[in-house]
């Protein structure tokens, strides 16, 4: 209210372009942000259209590789979709593949049922952790685990895929359900998995994801899986090359 206060913008006086004290209309403010937002959106959509196929292709490739990794000794696998609570090799006409949950049922070189791989995501410490794990329906033991996607803290939580001895525990055929155990406090129970100090939440979560995944899928898997693959093999050796 007092007119003694004379606001002189020191910094602006050096510049030529911004006129002082000229009120800007609300419309102009909204228009500026609106146009900027639209251009940003357009740019993002364009780049996303270009990069999304590459990202998806990479993810699909990683997933395919991962099935072989978490089920060591796999020769080939079939994808089963959960359609109306029944495992089915084919999807109904005209539906989107990505809407259906699926498991990967693998067979060994003698075409005998070998293992089942499932992927599952749950919130970890930062964001969703995507895990794929292999389980043997014959022995009830875990065969392997791989973290597909995670944004866990670099240096700490990311040990869930960087700490190889830790990951190795899942390949040592532990009994299911898994029991998270503090390092050094194990009692020798067959399903024990040591957690990692400094990454307790992330490591426990991975164990929990596997347990939850098994719990969810077991009823369907127990409906019976074919002991040998019902799918005709056309180009059998082609897929086997992916094995690492």
């Amino acid at each position: 209210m007092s007119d003694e206060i004379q606001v002189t913008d020191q910094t602006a006086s050096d510049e030529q372009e911004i006129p002082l004290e000229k009120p800007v209309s609300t419309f102009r403010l909204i228009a500026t942000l609106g146009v900027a937002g639209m251009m940003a959106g357009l740019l993002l959509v364009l780049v996303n259209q270009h990069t999304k196929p590459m990202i998806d292709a990479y993810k699909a490739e990683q997933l395919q590789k991962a099935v072989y990794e978490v089920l060591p000794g796999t020769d080939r696998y079939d994808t089963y979709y959960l359609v109306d609570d029944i495992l089915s090799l084919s999807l109904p006409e005209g539906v989107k593949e990505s809407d259906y949950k699926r498991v990967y049922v693998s067979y060994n070189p003698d075409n005998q049922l070998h293992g089942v791989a499932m992927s599952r995501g749950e919130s970890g410490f930062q964001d969703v952790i995507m895990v794929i794990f292999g389980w043997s329906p014959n022995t009830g033991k875990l065969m392997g685990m791989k973290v597909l996607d995670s944004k866990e803290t670099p240096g700490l939580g990311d040990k869930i895929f960087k700490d190889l001895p830790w990951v190795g525990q899942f390949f040592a055929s532990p009994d299911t359900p898994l029991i998270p155990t503090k390092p050094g406090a194990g009692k020798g129970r067959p399903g024990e998995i040591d957690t990692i100090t400094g990454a307790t939440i992330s490591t426990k979560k991975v164990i929990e994801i596997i347990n939850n995944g098994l719990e969810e899928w077991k009823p369907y898997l127990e409906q019976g899986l074919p002991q040998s693959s019902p799918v005709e093999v056309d180009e059998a050796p082609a897929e086997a090359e992916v094995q690492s």
Partner: protein
Amino acid sequence: MKKTTPSQDFVRGIWKENAVLIQMLGLCPALAVTNTVKNALAMSAATFFVLCCSSVLISTFKRLIPKEVRISSYILVIATFVTLADMILQAYAPVQHKELGAFIALIVVNCMILGRQEAFSSKNNVFRSLLDAIGVGIGFTIALVMMGGFREILGVGTFFDISLFGPNFEPWVSRVLPAGGFLTLGFILLAMGYFEQRKKAKPPKVEAETVEVSS
């Protein structure tokens, strides 16, 4: 504001006004992803890209942006480039993208970038804004690689994944943990302050009239 030459714009950000070590800006990535040199470099590269692109774009459109909405406009521009960097990294360098995880998205809130837009790009032409951005970007890279180097050498015993000390090295694990980040930064700043003070304390050779001797 002091008038500067284009070369000063460029050089200033590299060391004398280093964003991390002198201005204490952008400390979040400087502390968080510098546990290895590789991560530090990838983070620097992504930040460099965002900084340069935003500086160029904002200095181009500075006349069109009313000052009432400048901060939101700058953030919008920065966030767009960060998302672009995120998508491009994910498509072309998926392994590195996985390494950095959440920290790519967090470049948006790196106040060093917003600071350059507010303090420089919004008042200077495109060419000088780009020079400034490149200088500051290089300075940021130097700071991050320095942090990453110290932490990786002490905490893991490697430099750029190359083993330095052989199998008997006992890694000083706390260096790569978050606390190690704070301590490493603290020691670097301590060393810099010490040398700065020594430089000040030394009497200049010729005009020794207004020297502040601080011991």
